[in-house]
């Protein structure tokens, strides 16, 4: 029977140690989880990061309200106002393919008709629409790629670490080979190979990002598990005859991968960046797909007159920067909190 306070005269103890009220949230999350949550709201930088990501989540969720799709079956297709090559500036009138007017539109812009809020790119693609729906693309691709790479990384890394010896050696040499080529180059070539096979869509680039993205996680998790593997409770479990798989999944993994998983979730920013970069190079989705890199790529034909057509790069560019910066700010804060040397400090 554990007692929260020792019996006897508690007066001295009470005056030396101030009692701290433990809130329901802290009880629910446990000391470690609570400390991480606290760390996220400690510095202005981390609060800024958190707010930025929250803002993007809202934009992504509210995309159909912010920019009603013209083709509801395929909302990721940026609507085109005609086919003229010349980009048109922000605020110019929207004539063809006009979306419905949402309730907030008149109150915010004071306009009765849709205008191109951020202008149009070449081929009259509406930039505002691309920016809004691009947020959904960013979360979709980011989440799927990060979760898949993390899953593969955890499985491969834990198998490699747990069995060790020959298995470990083979897996780690494969990892070595896959890591020779720089990430972008490797993704680029695999996407180029896959696109003719499965067609232009999100898939080729996503598959390539996954195929060349898991090795880093596998290495980190392997290292973490190797250190946890030596702990006494693992030995104890082995002595009483627990199955290998159960030891791995119930005793070792939860203790080894927590911080890696938290940090990995922040790689959504990096993944979005790679995805946008490949889109910018013209690899992956078809022209006119609502993706920030795609919209930025429209600027490539107008380099010499960017002083007139600044809006093609400024709006999607700033959006992409803010998105990635949000994840980076959050990541910096989390890295500080999860640093083992900081553990136990409030």
């Amino acid at each position, binding site marked *: 029977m554990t007692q929260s306070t020792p019996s006897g005269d508690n007066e001295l103890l009470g005056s030396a140690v101030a009692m701290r009220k433990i809130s329901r949230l802290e009880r629910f999350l446990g000391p470690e989880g609570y400390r991480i949550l606290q760390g996220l709201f400690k510095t202005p930088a981390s609060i800024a990061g958190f707010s930025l990501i929250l803002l993007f989540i809202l934009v992504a969720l509210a995309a159909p309200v912010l920019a009603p799709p013209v083709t509801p079956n395929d909302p990721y297709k940026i609507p085109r106002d005609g086919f003229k090559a010349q980009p048109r500036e922000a605020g110019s009138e929207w004539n063809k393919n006009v979306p419905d007017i949402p309730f907030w539109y008149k109150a915010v812009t004071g306009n009765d008709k849709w205008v191109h809020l951020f202008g149009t790119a070449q081929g009259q693609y509406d930039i505002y629409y691309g920016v809004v729906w691009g947020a959904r693309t960013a979360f979709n691709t980011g989440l799927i790629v990060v979760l898949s790479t993390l899953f593969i990384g955890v499985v491969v890394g834990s198998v490699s670490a747990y069995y060790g010896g020959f298995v470990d050696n083979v897996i780690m040499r494969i990892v070595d080979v896959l890591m020779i080529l*720089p990430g972008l180059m490797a993704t680029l070539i695999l996407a180029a*190979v896959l696109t003719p096979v499965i067609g232009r869509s999100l898939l080729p680039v996503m598959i390539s990002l996954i195929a060349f993205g898991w090795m880093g996680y596998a290495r980190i998790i392997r290292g973490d598990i190797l250190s946890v593997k030596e702990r006494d409770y693992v030995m104890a479990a082995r002595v009483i005859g627990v199955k290998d798989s159960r030891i791995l999944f119930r005793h070792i993994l939860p203790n080894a991968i927590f911080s890696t998983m938290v940090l990995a979730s922040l790689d959504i920013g990096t993944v979005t960046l790679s995805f946008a970069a490949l889109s*910018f*190079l013209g690899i992956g989705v078809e022209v006119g797909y609502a993706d920030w890199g795609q919209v930025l790529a429209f600027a490539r034909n107008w380099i010499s007159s960017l002083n007139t057509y600044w809006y093609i*790069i400024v709006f999607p560019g700033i959006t992409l920067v803010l998105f*990635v910066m949000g994840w980076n700010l959050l990541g910096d804060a989390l890295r500080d909190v999860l640093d083992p040397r900081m553990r136990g400090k409030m």
Partner: protein
Amino acid sequence: MLTYIVRRLLLVPFLLFGVTILIFGMLQFLDPVERASLYVRGDPKANQIEAAITKYCLDCPIHVQYFNWMIGRVDPITNEREGGILFGNFGWSKTGSQPVAQLIARRFPNTLDLTIWAVAPVILVGIWMGVQAAVHHNGWIDQAARVFSIVGTSFPSFVFGLLMLMLFYANLQWFPPGRLTDEFSQVVNSDQFLHYTSLLTFDALLNGRFDIFVDALRHMFLPILTLSYINWATFLRVTRGSMLETLRQEYVTTARAKGLSEHDVIYKHAQPNAMLPLVTLAGFTVVGLMGGVIITETVFDYPGIGSAAAAASAQLDVITVLGFALFNGLLLIVANLVVDILYAVVDPRVRLS
């Protein structure tokens, strides 16, 4: 140290084998007709395709094909070797209308030229900033460096590059994209201009054409600025961390205690030791630049191997892209070996073990 180097060398054949398997594996996504470009020069005509498949054994078992791909095949009539990556034959580039190896040979000097001029601003300035941040730990320089490194890691190179083009090219007309102004590229392509090194800036100097030299640098300014900017954040972070670590060491305290000036303590005692991790980072950065910086070269329309790979990939010219990847892989394996050995030579702890 000898055992370290030998062990490192033994890894090389294995990595080479791995990379060729990787590239060869990706080639298997192509149908045999497309793979004929690995051996046939020029675009195969419709009636030659069947013949090419039989001739080059493109539907044979995998290991036979791998062997053919490695060493090629000698034509019994003309006695010429067709294909064979070991002999530098990477196939025929459809988009470039020339052998892939020739395309690489034409593009690589440009990338090398850019690398040479980018090394000093990218690495030395980055290290200098990191040292300043560490010396003024928690001061305003350090805070500014922190902000810079967050912004630096968040700003994608293509957005930064486009903004620079908007400012310095579209608005101010100072630094154009591309490689050379038209009138100068005519001179360079003429017979009077001798290509001693095939690196444009050095050739311009050797030919005594200072105007071409300046024009080439003018075109490289924005790519170098972009490369510096994306690499500074990393160099800043690593240098700052390593320098802070070193400044906490006891021999630094000793140096201070015996009354050395702060300048000597920092630049003579601390900095040389803090530079060890940067040897590797700097090495890998140079190697990365040499392998072709895909995005930066593409944004600025710089004719290096990075932009060539990106262009081929966007046009789904797989043979060309894989040729570039193979070249890049071989380059990286060799260069990483050099960096690792260099590190062993520089670090006394490894050297004397």
